[in-house]
């Protein structure tokens, strides 16, 4: 038994520690892996006879798909990261400004008279996906997708599950609303609280994407991130988040829920809500699969940081608006 230490690169998040330790401990002949994030050092106890250089290669093979690598000598880490945030800040803010200007311009406020058919609800879905609802639902999708693709490169399974969950819940719950009629009252307070939870999650993930936690400026218990990591690995979690978007505060969703409610049958309620969810799909799919493909490009640090800035802004907006909606603070916005 000997103890070896390696330098590790690519550890960008607190949850990386848990991931590397778990992965290396699975290897035969390796015990007590310990990752020191601050010093970027991995120490292991091993009974294997290979040289330290050979071991570094073998172990890197196990974790390189996730963007980490081990080396005996400390790699001089390119410190281009520092400059990236200064490029990302204006980019993120520019998208944020674009969002507010679109809302304020009123181009989204066209009327759709008459009864709601699946066709009109599809169009309403298209509009909703770029409306103020984007602040909550879109921001959540972007922050989760960017976080997932930052940790696990090129894995679109959680995103497929998320969108699947969203479509299925809209279809089924829309049908239920149509069948039961007014029996389900969708509580204002409940949706507002969910919206506030979503915006807090967005802000935290946004800060993480920007890289504030990385440099230990803010010490969060690593349990928080290990929770997220577990959530990512579970099949059910992204699916449930998708289902949950049915209840997130969004005026368009609520109007469609009322339309489904008054439609009078399971099938018509299902059609209305499914068409609405399909209408919102292009924009949301663009956000989530866009993050996945950006994550693989060479601009990924810029993308993650820009997305982080954007998500923090949307999250702060949704949080303040949500608190105003609950009557806790005076409304600050009227866009």
């Amino acid at each position, binding site marked *: 038994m000997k103890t070896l230490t390696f330098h590790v690169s690519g550890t960008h998040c607190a949850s990386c520690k848990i991931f590397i330790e778990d992965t290396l401990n699975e290897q035969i002949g390796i015990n007590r892996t310990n990752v020191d994030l601050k010093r970027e050092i991995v120490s292991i106890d091993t009974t294997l006879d290979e040289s330290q250089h050979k071991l570094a290669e073998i172990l890197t093979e196990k974790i390189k798909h996730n963007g980490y690598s081990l080396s005996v000598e400390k790699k001089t880490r390119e410190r281009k990261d520092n400059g990236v945030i200064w490029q990302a800040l204006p980019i993120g803010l520019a998208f944020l400004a674009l969002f507010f200007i679109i809302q304020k311009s009123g181009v989204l406020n066209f009327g759709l008279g008459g009864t709601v058919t699946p066709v009109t609800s599809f169009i309403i879905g298209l509009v909703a996906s770029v409306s103020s609802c984007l602040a909550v639902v879109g921001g959540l999708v972007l922050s989760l997708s960017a976080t997932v693709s930052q940790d696990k490169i090129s894995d679109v399974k959680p995103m497929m599950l998320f969108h699947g969950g969203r479509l299925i819940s809209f279809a089924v719950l829309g049908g239920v609303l149509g069948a039961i009629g007014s029996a389900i009252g969708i509580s204002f307070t409940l949706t507002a609280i969910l919206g506030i939870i979503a915006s807090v999650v967005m802000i935290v993930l946004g800060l993480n994407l920007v890289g504030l936690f990385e440099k230990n400026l803010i010490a969060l218990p690593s349990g928080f991130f290990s929770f997220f990591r577990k959530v990512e690995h579970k099949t059910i979690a992204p699916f449930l988040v998708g289902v949950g978007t049915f209840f997130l505060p969004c005026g368009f969703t609520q109007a469609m829920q009322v339309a489904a409610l008054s439609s009078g049958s399971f099938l018509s309620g299902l059609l209305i809500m499914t068409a609405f969810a399909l209408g919102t799909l292009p924009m949301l799919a663009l956000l989530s699969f866009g993050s996945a493909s950006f994550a693989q490009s060479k601009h990924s640090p810029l993308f993650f940081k820009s997305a982080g800035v954007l998500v923090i802004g949307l999250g702060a907006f949704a949080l303040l608006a949500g608190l*105003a909606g609950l009557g806790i603070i005076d409304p600050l916005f009227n866009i």
Partner: protein
Amino acid sequence: MQKNTIISIIISVAIIGGTLYFVSDRTTPSGTQSQNVEIRDGVQYVTVTAKGGYSPRTTQLKGGLPTKLIVKTDGTYDCSASLAVRSAGFQKILQPTGEEIIDLGTPKSGEKVQGVCSMGMYNFAVNFN
């Protein structure tokens, strides 16, 4: 590097300032008596249109009169359709097209009734004085 940082900060501040200027309210409260107010049989009716926000944003009313708030919708599917008027204990998702009459009771002078959409991004106020 230092230069880029400064440029970045300048651009960021410009974007934030420009957006705040664009988004902020520049509507000045107009006149003392608003046009959307009608008094019938001693009851004061105030009409607010809900579509892509609420208009008018603020209404001045006389205090001490029984008051009813009429919220009109016309093909409204956005957030303004899900209205909460907390002081009146009113929370409802309005029909896309129609009128909703909300009883505000008899507010005294100096009171303020505020309506917010469920996401909190649209609001309106009725002031009594």
